[in-house]
């Protein structure tokens, strides 16, 4: 395997701000770390930990896939997603909320889940996996929480490891992780990690973006190899440069794993 550190370092420095990369080998790949424990605003990438806690609760029998939740007409959390545009009173199942949270990065669905699951419990599950950098302190677009200094955090190493756990069924276990992987695989926004990879690359991921922060984390596999990857960026000047940096680093890793270029 060739040394990708110089190329990653060059791209990270060109972007500016803080760039972190963690790659975890699952099959015929390799581990790679670049400032991997740097704690950054999670943006929507926090939805992977929320998803893991959500499927874990299913296993505990506290809730079922068809448990009904009602779309509250008074709550129109802004930002990504579709529910804020849907008619008030729309009944949704627990599974619908998980699906919308991941596929469309739906903030309203996510807040309904965080409310149900409890931020502390999500954080506790992450601590249980040994993730010091990942924390859920508030709902999304919770301006009161923000004013109190509450925020949500991830580290690239935590997310890459969590994705590996999901793939290996060591997060919530068995069918629960299969469900989580299935939902992540149906992601509609596969852009950053995916855009420069060849057709045969399969991707299950969750990007995140807020102000001067952009991330993407997930799993990448073909018939021959499999790995998890998380690239976080923070403090850059140009959104499009951040996008191209994540895409470029993903391609460097993919080419090194696949033996291409």
């Amino acid at each position, binding site marked *: 395997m060739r040394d990708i550190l110089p190329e990653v370092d060059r791209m990270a420095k060109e972007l500016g701000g803080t760039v972190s990369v963690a790659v975890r080998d699952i099959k015929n790949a390799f581990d790679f770390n670049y400032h991997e424990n740097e704690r950054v605003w999670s943006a929507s990438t926090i939805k992977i930990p929320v998803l893991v806690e959500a499927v874990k609760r299913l296993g505990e029998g506290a809730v079922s896939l068809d448990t009904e939740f009602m779309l509250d007409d008074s709550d129109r959390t802004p930002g990504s997603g579709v529910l804020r545009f*849907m008619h008030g009173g729309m009944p949704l199942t627990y599974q619908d909320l998980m699906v919308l949270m991941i*596929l469309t990065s739906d903030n309203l669905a996510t807040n309904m889940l965080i409310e149900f699951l409890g931020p502390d419990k999500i954080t506790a599950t992450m601590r249980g996996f040994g993730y010091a950098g990942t924390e859920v302190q508030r709902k999304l677009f919770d301006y009161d929480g923000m004013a109190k200094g509450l925020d949500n955090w991830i580290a690239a190493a935590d997310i890459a490891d969590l994705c590996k756990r999901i793939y290996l069924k060591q997060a919530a276990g068995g069918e629960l992780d299969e469900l989580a992987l299935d939902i992540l695989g*149906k992601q*509609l926004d596969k852009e950053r990690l995916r855009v420069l990879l060849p057709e045969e690359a399969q991707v299950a991921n969750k990007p995140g973006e807020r102000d001067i922060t952009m991330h993407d984390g997930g799993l990448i596999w073909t018939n021959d190899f499999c790995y998890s990857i998380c690239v976080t960026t923070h403090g850059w000047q140009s959104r499009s440069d951040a996008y191209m940096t994540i895409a470029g680093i993903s391609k460097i890793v993919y080419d090194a794993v696949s033996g291409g270029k």
Partner: protein
Amino acid sequence: MNDLRDGIERLAQSCGGTVSVSVRDISKAFDFSFNADAPIVAASTIKVPIMIETLKQARDGRISLSTEYVLRKTGRVAGSGVISQLSDGLLLTIRDLLTLMIIVSDNTATNMLIDIVGMSSVNATMQAMGYKGLTLRRKMYDWDAVAQGVDNRVVAAEMADLLARMARGVLLGSEEDALALQIMRGQLYNHILGLFLPEGVLANKTGQVGTALNDCGIVATDQFSYAVAIFTQDTDCLGETQIAVSRMSKLICDAAACKNCG
């Protein structure tokens, strides 16, 4: 403007295949055409004409946007969207379906709307508006039709013209056109025309199927606004075409900004 043409040509050549670009001035921008009359496989950009027909029928009192439909196991189609992954029995209004068809390019919502408004009505409306090149011939994920050579087509010049009229409020009338624009502003796919643009300036509809990669929309800043359609097919590499289209969009926006900085 020559610089813009050179830049677009250079990027189009780097893509290979067919690249079609049309810009229509709405306010303080410009008109621009590059191979703008080429018929291109529509992919999901055909959802713009379907939206227009749905809003037209609502305007004319033939349907109501608040009518509810029940999501069933049948009629679900894969590909883009979220409804196919949601629970059986979900209640969706026509407005919900419209929104999902546009902002997440939902194929199931699209097919439900085609059943509601009628394929021939969409085509008749486009013809009457003067858009003979915007044609709906098959439902989403109807690969049998595609195999028989039946497909939906769009023409960049016509789509940009439609969008410009919509933005001016003279396509269906100010109320319906404003709603169409509002729905398009909620778009989640802002990575093609929108990738290199400032945040919040774009209302658009993307499309991608096979080797076709398309995006069309309205760019509106404090200084200027224009409609733009960039359609491509048979290019060498989808990922690189996507980024090339993003760069074309940026060149157009920069040219409009340059025109206004005097």
